Every structure is written in C-alpha cells, then in structure tokens.
C-alpha cells in the first residue's frame, strides 16, 4: 500500500472525502453569511442560532405534526426564513446606515437570547433525530464506507451553492441585487423596490442557515449550542474567503473542510485551531481575503 507521510493513501482518500462533506456545511453556512454581508452590510451573528433553529424546527414538526425529513427540508427554511424577515423588518433595517458594529452587537445578542431560550425549553443534551429511511445505508468505495446520507449532503450543498452563485452573479435579478448594494438610491429611482429586495435577501440567507440545520439534524447532535460551536469556524471561513464574496465563501468552505480533515489525521489536537491559523496568515498577506475585492 502506498503511504504518504506514514499514512496509507487509502485513508487519505477517505479523509479527503470526509473533509469535503464537512466543507459542504461550512460552504452552505458561509454562503448565507456572505450573501447577507454582501447585500446588507450586516455581520449576521445570529446565523449559528438560525442554523440551530433549523434543526429544532425539523425536530418539532416531526414530533408534533408528524412531518418527516423531506417536508422539513422544504418547510423549515421557509419558517425560519420568515422569522428572519420579521427580524429584518423590526430591528435590522434601522441599522444599515450605522457602523457594522451595531449590526454585529444586535445579532450577537439575539443569538445568545435564542440559544438561552432553547436551552431553557429543551435542555442542553440534545434531541434525537433519525436519518430518513430512504437515505440509510451506504456504498463501499473500497477505501472507505460512504453513508448514503453524507453523499446526499455533498450533492445538496453543491447544487444550492452553485444555484445561489448563478442567481446572484449571472441573472437579471442578481444584477439588480448587486446594483442595489452599490447604489440603492439610483436603483430605487429605476422603480425597483430596494427595501423589499433587501428584506427578502436576508430571509433567503437565513433560510440557507435553516436548510443547513435540517441537513445536520440526522448526523449531528441537535442541541441549543450546536450553532455557537460552528459559527465561529464559519466566520473564519468567510473572512478567509473575503467578506461578501459568494464564490469565495463556497470555495473556501469546501477547501477548509479538506484542510481540517487532513489535520484530524496528522495532528488531531490542532483540528479546531488550524482554520484560525490560516485565517491569521491570510489576513497578514491579503487583508481582504482570498477572493475579496481590495478596497
């Protein structure tokens, strides 16, 4: 068997694949953050809590309405996205003209409140959620066993990420959005309802977080702190990719998933630090991020 740095190459293929799977979560979450920051100039610290709410809503509609995973996949992003719209209309919209720090503080505070409320009602141990029957089992790839569900995660993530990138960068709607960020007054003068567009964009970004939450529910522990643990990493991903860059968020999300995966083999103790080391290095060399436009 071929070995690379003392690790069998087959094991490395496995880790590469697992890295990509983790990367799909990073990509989905950082995509939402990048869209929101790019269009609204808000650093959405509630993103982790909204991801957590996605998983909880999936659990709740299964528990109380008997609606399974597939319904959750559709309903949850809409429900949580709608809550996001409510939040934008009631609180966030007043902050656009202020410094970024205000949006950050507001969303950070909200995240703490949401987490606390969920912990109060559901405890911190977590709730059980099963992998849907049609996605159980898996393939033996020779170098590793790939559960069908993880394959599904990669596919969904790729489709959603590139769909979003396409809409924003390549369609007319996307061009309105980008124009509205550059110069809202002018776009408004052309008869486009800019505030509504911004509200819906926020709702969409939040919906993405909720979707990631539903995707995570069967494989990770559904607990109130699940978002807080992940969101810090996701922020690092966004910073490395370049704040607000859609393609940057996607590529760095997958890329850092892979880097983290390899760290788990060669130096597991550093696996939750490696991303921040990279972030520090990137900020030193390219302060606007790998894909960011230099100001």
């Amino acid at each position, binding site marked *: 068997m071929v070995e690379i740095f003392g690790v069998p190459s087959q094991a490395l293929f496995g880790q590469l694949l697992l890295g990509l799977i983790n990367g799909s979560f990073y990509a989905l979450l950082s995509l939402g953050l990048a869209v929101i920051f790019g269009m609204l100039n808000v650093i959405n610290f509630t993103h982790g809590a909204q991801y957590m709410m996605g998983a909880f809503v999936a659990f709740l509609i299964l528990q109380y309405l008997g609606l399974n995973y597939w319904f959750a996949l559709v309903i949850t992003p809409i429900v949580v996205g709608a809550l996001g719209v409510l939040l934008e209309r009631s609180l966030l919209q007043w902050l656009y003209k202020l410094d970024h720090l205000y949006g950050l503080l507001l969303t950070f505070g909200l995240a703490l409140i949401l987490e*606390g409320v969920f*912990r109060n009602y559901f405890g*911190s141990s977590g709730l059980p959620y099963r992998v849907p029957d049609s996605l159980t089992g898996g393939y033996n790839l020779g170098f590793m066993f790939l559960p069908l569900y*993880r394959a599904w995660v990669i596919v969904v993530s790729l489709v959603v990420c590139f769909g979003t990138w396409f809409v924003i960068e390549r369609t007319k709607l996307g061009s309105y959005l980008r124009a509205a960020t550059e110069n809202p007054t002018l776009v408004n003068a052309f008869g486009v309802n800019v505030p509504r567009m911004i509200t819906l964009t926020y709702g969409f970004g939040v919906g993405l977080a909720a979707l990631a939450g539903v995707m995570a529910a069967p494989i*990770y*522990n559904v607990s109130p*702190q699940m978002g807080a643990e*992940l969101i810090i990493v996701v922020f690092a991903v966004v910073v490395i990719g370049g704040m607000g860059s859609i393609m940057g968020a996607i590529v760095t999300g997958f890329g850092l998933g892979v880097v983290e995966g390899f760290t788990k083999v060669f130096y597991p103790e550093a696996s939750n630090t490696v991303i921040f080391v990279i972030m520090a290095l990137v900020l030193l060399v390219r302060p606007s991020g790998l894909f960011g436009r230099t100001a």
Partner: protein
Amino acid sequence: MTRKLGLIALSAALLCGAAQAQQVTVKVGVLSDMSSLYSDITGAGSVLAAKLAIADFLASNKDIKVELVSADHQNKPDIGTTIANQWFDVDKVDVIVDVPNSGVGLAVSQVAANKNKVFVVSGAATSDLTGPKCNANTVAWTYDTWMLANGTGKAMVKTGGDTWFFLAADYAFGAALQRDTTAAVEAVGGKVLGGVRHPLNTNDFSSFLLQAQSSKAKVIGLANAGGDTINSIKAAFEFGLTKGGQKLAGLLVFINDVNALGLEIAQGLTLTETFYWDKDDNTRAFTKRFQQERPSKFPSMVQAGAYAGTLHYLKAVAGLKSAADGKAVVAKMKELATDDPLFGKGTIRPDGRKLHDAYLYEVKTPAESKYPGDVYKLRATIPANEAFRPLKEGGCPLVSG
C-alpha cells in the same frame, strides 16, 4: 442566698450565650456548568438536588441554618477559581458541591485546600482528585475515571473485546480516562492499539472514527462526555462501524445522553454508572420529587451525587456543630458511615474517595423499553471494594504519609 441566685443567673446567661453561639449557619455553593454541554447532566439539576438534600436535612435538624448559592463556571478553570475564591473569602461559603469538568474540579480542589474549606466533588471525573492531587479538604462522591474504566473496560475485555482504540477528549478528563482504561484493559490481558485526542466540543467525528476503523481494534473506547459522546456514537452508527463488528465502549455515558441519542442508535451500549433512577423504590421516590421541579427530566448520577454528598456534609457539620474548619468537617465526614436513600450505606476512605457499589448497565432495545426513561438493564453489580481504585495504588500523599 443572693450569691447563689447570682451564680445561677450568671451560669444561665453563659449557657444562653453558648446556645446562641451554637446556632450554626452553613452556606452551600453549587458550582456547575449551567449553560453548556454538561448543563443537563449537572447544572440546574444539581442545584435542585442540593436543595432537596437541604430540605431533607432540615427536617430533622431545625437548629441549623442552611443557605444555598449557585454559579456557572462556563467550563473555564480561571472562572471557576475566581468564583471559588470569592465565595470562600467574601460570601462566606463553607462548601462547594458538584463542579463538572475535571480541569475546573482540580483547580477548585486546590482553592478549597488553601482556604481550609470543603469541596464535595460530584461532577468532575478525574481519579487524580483522590490520587496524586488529593487533599484533606476534598471528598469525591459519585464516580471517577478509574471506576468507569475498570467497570466498562474489564467487562468488554471479558466478553472478547481485547483490542482497543481510543477517542479521547483533549483535556485532563479525557487523558485520565484513557490512562485508567488502558491500565484496566491491560490488567486483564487486553491490548491498546492506538488513540486520537480530539478537541472539546468537536462537531464531526467521522474523521476520527475512520482512523479507529482502520486500526481494526475490536473495541472503540469513547473517553469523552456529553455532546462529544453523542456525536461520536451517532457517526459510528451512520458509518456502519458497529455493523462491521467493532464495538463501542461509552466510558462516560449518562442517561441524558442515551435519551438524546434515542434507543435505536444507543441500544446495546455497555456503560457503568453508580446511580440509575429506576434502580429501587428509594431512587424512584427521589426521581418523583426531582421531576416536580424539572418535569420529564431524569436525575443523572452526578445530580444524585450532589444530593447525597450535600446531605452527608451537612450531617458532619451537625455532628461538629461548626462548619468553620474544613479539614475537621472532612475528617468527620470520613469518620461517619454514609447512609442515604440513593447510594445506600457506604464509607469515605482516607484519600477522600466515597465507596459504594457500581453497576454495569446495557442500553435496552426500543422493544424492551416500556415507559419513558426505561433504558437500562443491569448486567452486573460491581461491589464497592472492587469498584474503585485500591487505596495504596492511588499515590495520594494523605495515605502514603
């Protein structure tokens, strides 16, 4: 005659003074994880358990006044130390109870010794608290890493799981648990093939499990706790490790974790606990009282330990009629035989280790579970004298002199 009366009056006054001096006030502080991964196993439930213990104690000791305070150490040793110092120095707390997280537990134990107060450990698991780091102010009540390792480790080896690979949380607790399990496994002829140290609060364990899988070890020992254990077991189930013939040994699994996993995933898991809510009439009665304030929650062994430890501490204070000298109170705790509804009769050893039976449980299948919380079946009872590390092997300075 007048002189006699005067003497009587004087002695009466003196007696009154003495009686007033004997009005003892005790302040109990529950220092716990109120807001993070261990908060269901410990946290508010431990505070409630201490409250119940105080209520039971006061029912027969009306002359003692007991106050209860609580705080969140956020799993940070520096915060834990700060709170402990403030409680002992400023707030006049006499005993700190619980303290999950071995890192924080070791720090608080030091503070209690320096200030000559008392620390009754229920949450922190490291066996070092009654080993090299023991002191005359600390009592470890519920369990420790040696006992978990010994119970589950030996049982797995005896049923054929003689090669091991560890997933260990990368801090004091995981290291202690891995070390103690390695010793237990090797003592009965098993072999350890390797292990990984993962950071606390890891989300995805698939990478580590793949390494465990390729080690070809028969048993994967999970030297972690809380959300980390849940995420590892979920991923092991998904990646088909258990179907491939490898077995999981949950070295520290609580009933709360089993409920979070669901029986479908958790079934067959072997684990060691010193308390199970459904063990006998006494534990069920306690659970009923517990659930009046925390509906549909089941007390964990750490919470049960917070109850029993607080109760025994108060009995020792009542015996001494003073809580001022921490060393004296702990000496009294060791001198008195322990007896409470949850752990039964027991003793506390010179190194601070509380001795009681431990139980090897197996998680039921969904079909076997008849009502909520009906999750364990008893596989073996490990008698108190075998359940914990022998006194002379701990390396506690209090014992070796």
